[in-house]
């Protein structure tokens, strides 16, 4: 909660002592949000040692931004020849489009979205240009290709950076199937040949990623992205688009939680109060202590199980877990 409070109301950090700052920074690092925190508390009075540390964090985030944009450019140079739309996703998209969500954000892999029909060509072009497979396991490889929303991850031989090539935004086995063609059609160009999703779809991708897929690991950061991105859209337009993609329930939940956690008390856009289920999400999102350690193991486990439940129909899940379990056993 310390971290959420600092992000929501940076002035509240004025009350922190040395131990308070130590804990706050430990939590922010664990959530991959140290750069975001550093940006938020810029200009707020703080102990010189904390200031020095956060200044270095900002410099590091800036270096990360440059590296991310360079990686996008490197992929673009390879894929431009194919003449297919290449849409940047997540962190790289936020910094490329200069959005608030990108300020100080840590960016790991390069995520791109391409039309499914051009997947083979994209893959071949990347392989020819120095990217290579990370996952050698044939089951994993086949699984990705058959059921996932992305190719198995590729890593660049020389730059050691990962690229995730998506052809849609949720696994093909998930119960929700967003209209990916509409997302690509409505994506907007940045002028340098690369594209980003429309503002509404950007929010909805983040929403789908957080609430319809995965176990909410890194959820605080994703919810912060959503909180920032929500400022760029009209609620009614967003909800209409959410309905179109089948993400209405998730979008509403995202708005409620983003406001509950990150909006200061004065309400800009009135949103309904948290439901009982929302409170479970909140409990999971805040499962972190002042040493950066994961807490609330049972809540975490429940969300982990849920993530698999969301991803696959029951029979398929059973078969998948059986295969994975046999592989993990004594070979």
């Amino acid at each position: 909660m310390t971290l959420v409070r600092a992000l929501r109301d940076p002035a509240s950090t004025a009350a922190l002592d040395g131990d308070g700052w130590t804990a706050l920074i430990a939590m922010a690092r664990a959530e991959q949000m140290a750069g975001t925190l550093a940006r938020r508390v810029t200009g707020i009075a703080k102990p010189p040692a904390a200031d020095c540390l956060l200044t270095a964090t900002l410099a590091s985030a800036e270096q990360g931004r440059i590296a991310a944009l360079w990686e996008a450019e490197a992929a673009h140079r390879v894929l431009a020849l194919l003449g297919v739309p290449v849409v940047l996703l997540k962190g790289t998209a936020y910094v490329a489009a200069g959005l608030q969500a990108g300020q100080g954000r840590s960016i790991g892999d390069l995520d791109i979205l391409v039309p499914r029909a051009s997947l083979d060509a994209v893959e071949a072009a990347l392989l020819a240009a120095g990217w290579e497979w990370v996952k050698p396991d044939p089951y994993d490889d086949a699984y990705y290709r058959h059921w996932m929303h992305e190719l198995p991850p590729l890593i660049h031989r020389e730059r050691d950076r990962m690229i995730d090539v998506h052809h849609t935004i949720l696994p093909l086995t998930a119960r929700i199937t967003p209209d990916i063609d509409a997302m690509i059609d409505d994506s907007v160009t940045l002028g340098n040949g690369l594209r980003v999703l429309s503002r509404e779809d950007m929010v909805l991708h983040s929403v789908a990623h957080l609430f319809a897929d995965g176990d909410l690991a890194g959820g605080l950061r994703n919810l912060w992205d959503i909180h920032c991105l929500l400022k760029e859209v009209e609620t009614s337009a967003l909800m209409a688009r959410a309905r179109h993609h089948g993400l209405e329930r998730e979008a509403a939940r995202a708005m409620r939680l983003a406001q509950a956690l990150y909006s200061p008390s004065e309400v800009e856009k009135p949103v309904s109060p948290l439901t009982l289920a929302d409170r479970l999400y909140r409990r999971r999102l805040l499962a972190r202590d002042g040493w950066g350690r994961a807490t609330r193991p049972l809540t975490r486990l429940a969300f982990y199980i849920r993530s698999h439940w969301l991803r696959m129909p029951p029979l398929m899940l059973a078969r998948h877990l059986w295969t994975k379990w046999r592989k993990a056993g004594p070979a």
Partner: protein
Amino acid sequence: MKHVHRVRIGPVGFRIGSDWRAPIAQIADLYRDYPAPNDGVADYNVRLFAARPWRRWLRPAITLGGDFTLPDAVPMPLDWGVLAAEMAMNLQLALGERRYLLLHASAVERDGRALLMTGVSGAGKSTLAALLATRGWRLMGDEFALLDPATGLVHAFPRLVSLKNASVGVMQAAAPAARFGPLLASTPKGDLRHMVPDATAIVRMDQPARPALILFPSFGFDPATRPLPQSEAFVRLTQASTNYTALGEAGFDALTHLVRAVPSRAIDYPDTDAALEMVEAEWSAL
């Protein structure tokens, strides 16, 4: 965490937490002359914990954690608590540090000027630095030299000196008054014992120094010295840096300035006495 110690080593503040009392008690004793982190803010957190709750008591094993971690860290026996804490502190710096360009090197200072020694494990950089510290040099550190890209100065990081195998005996003879940690037998690095840096090293740890000479020692050869071209020194130092890539342009600039301003020499030596003579000779020839 149950047991906690806070310490500042050079410009870097640590908060070390442990599930067990013993490692913290040992660390607190060995670092008793060091200050607490500036303003009470730790730059890095280190966690020594039991991967499973019962491993706290049953065949206790320390897992290393912190703000920055590597996957697949192998747990260590509880008796190696000091080693675990030291390794975890080094790891935080290696993975997380962005203010300074980290050079995996030992550093000693005389007359405000620093001598850096870098090389593969076993090249003797720790032992040489510790021995030089008994002969009028100030020990700045035996693991990392912290190069400030803004000033070109090297900052001290005088953590416990990590002595391995034969150098344990060598240093006990050369510095009989020094304080030593527990002897850790048969670690992956061999028999290992930590030595507390001398009082000067601790008292003056906030004084940076201008680098004056970079040596690349190799142990077990006939005596020979060879000047290194700037290009070779540059490449070797990029490999000796854990955060060169992460710093981007700042790292490149810092390292380019360093190898242009400071001469580099490779020295081969058959034994420590020869090495000390060669180092002194190179230094006086500057």
